[in-house]
């Protein structure tokens, strides 16, 4: 019938079963083998380290020109400059978190993934776990380097010094890396719920960047009652050194942010099981 020879399909000896560990390895392969991962994580690392250095250098250079009130204001929040990168890199972490899941939907890869793992939930847990470990492994050294580099610059000018041994500093520095990990998890869960890259990033931005300033338009008693409990400010309390009456203490804030992430993941899990892929 034809001259096209078909080599016989090589047989596969053993039959391995799906396990959570194997799915995690698969998700690690997926994460490391696309460009968006490299660019986003490179950006997050550069921003986390670069911004504290940049801001410290600017403040050091301009310190002599600042009026006393402004100096006092900066000196009252010495750690904020050293952890300034977190505010920027959270966007890169969030975008990649959304993409980790929505790119599967936009490319159709999700059909292959869910055909390989038809129970589906191991895929969500593996994506979340792998992304959390990767962001923590990169962001912890980044915030530590950013902190020490910025303090080294400020030290030379004897301004805004706050040593690592200062109470609350280790917690805040490590907490800022923890905050970034949770931001990534929250964004991934939103991506899994929305299943669309633009929609996922828009939803994340609304919750983290649009709603908080909008609440300033409310009467301040309302704003003060609501704002501390938003995911964004609950999470930020993890790396704040001082807490006003209108912000949560670090551990309650951390617990609340973890709660938001768990809620978003639970909703994502229910929808992943129920919906047609």
């Amino acid at each position, binding site marked *: 019938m034809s001259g096209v*020879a078909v080599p016989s*399909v*090589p047989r596969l000896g053993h039959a391995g079963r799906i396990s959570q560990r194997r799915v995690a390895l698969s998700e690690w392969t997926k994460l490391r083998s696309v460009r968006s991962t490299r660019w986003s994580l490179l950006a997050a690392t550069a921003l986390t380290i670069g911004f504290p250095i940049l801001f410290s250098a600017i403040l050091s250079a301009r310190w002599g020109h600042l009026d006393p009130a402004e100096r006092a204001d900066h000196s009252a929040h010495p750690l904020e400059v050293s952890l300034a990168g977190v505010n920027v890199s959270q966007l890169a972490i969030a975008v990649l978190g959304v993409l980790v899941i929505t790119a599967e939907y936009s490319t159709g*890869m999700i059909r*292959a993934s869910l*055909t390989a793992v*038809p129970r589906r939930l191991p895929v969500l847990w593996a994506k979340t776990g792998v992304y959390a470990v990767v962001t923590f492994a990169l962001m912890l050294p980044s915030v530590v380097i950013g902190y020490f580099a910025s303090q080294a610059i400020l030290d030379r000018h004897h301004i805004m010094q706050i040593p690592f041994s200062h109470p609350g500093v280790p917690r805040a520095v490590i907490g800022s890396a923890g905050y970034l990990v949770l931001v990534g998890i929250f964004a991934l869960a939103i991506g899994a719920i929305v299943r669309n890259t633009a929609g996922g990033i828009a939803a994340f931005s609304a919750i983290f960047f649009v709603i908080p300033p909008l609440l300033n338009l409310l009467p301040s008693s309302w704003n003060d009652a609501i704002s501390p409990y938003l995911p964004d400010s609950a999470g930020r309390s993890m790396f704040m050194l001082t807490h006003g009456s209108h912000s949560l203490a670090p551990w309650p804030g951390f617990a609340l942010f973890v709660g938001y992430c768990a809620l978003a993941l639970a909703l994502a899990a229910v929808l992943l099981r129920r919906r*047609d*892929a």
Partner: protein
Amino acid sequence: MIEARALTKDYGDKRAVDELTFTVRPGIVTGFLGPNGAGKSTTMRLILGLDSPTSGDVTVNGSHYRDFPAPLHEVGAILEARSVHGGRSAYNHLLALAQTHGIGRRRVRELIDLVGLEDVAGKRAGKFSLGMGQRLGIATALLGDPSTLLLDEPVNGLDPEGIQWIRNLLLALAAEGRTVFVSSHLMSEMAVTADHLIVIGRGRLIADASVDEVVRRASGRLVRVRSPQADQLRALVAGPEVTVTSLQRELLEIAGVTADAIGELAAEHGIVLHELTPLQASLEEAFMELTRDELEFHHAEPAPREVEEVAA
């Protein structure tokens, strides 16, 4: 072995698959045939548990796909719509899927060689031609050495050599005792590959029979008649269900009346027949014949149930 029982899927108020009951047996190639939008891809997704049926049930080797501890060893699938991240290399795509089952790198390379993608395995899959994409799909399907293969339009976009290669591969896989279920909207494709056919139209089962039987069933509906009184005969058989084509002055092809009825009609009116032959339909004609009813039914009634092709 794939068994569907009264399998039904609605998308909103549109019924894509309508009470399908069929069995796909191992050891042969079973063609899954129907016009575009007939519900073939939806049925495939239901088998793989990607979509949940509205009612009814479908199992593979007696189990629901979702319940397999090692699904890639049971079923290998190529879905019609691409299911590959274009930014990932073919090698990493296969590796990621293999790793879910603890399948090693050696197996991944074996399959890349088998489908002839060794030169481009490191390139981003988004740059692949349609044919290379189909080869990657085949490699994905065979990764777990599955006993059942589910292939949605696997020859789409392949060059003639590639088509030939797939045909031979499917026949070889079936000969090894595997269940091979291949969808196509081209009857001619199935004619050379499939032993058995499941034909659907608008989500409903139209035929579940061997290729020979499908041809036989459609055959005989077209009858060639040669008569010196062709015009007279033509007037006699005329009716709403009957179409008569005049090929030559004394030669007619009549559809919608059996050869027996034409013979009796001719005898009754003393018309001389020189030839009365039920024609053997080609598989393509059989397919048209089978699906024609569905389409006519649809056009006759004001949209009872519009089924569109469901975007994957």
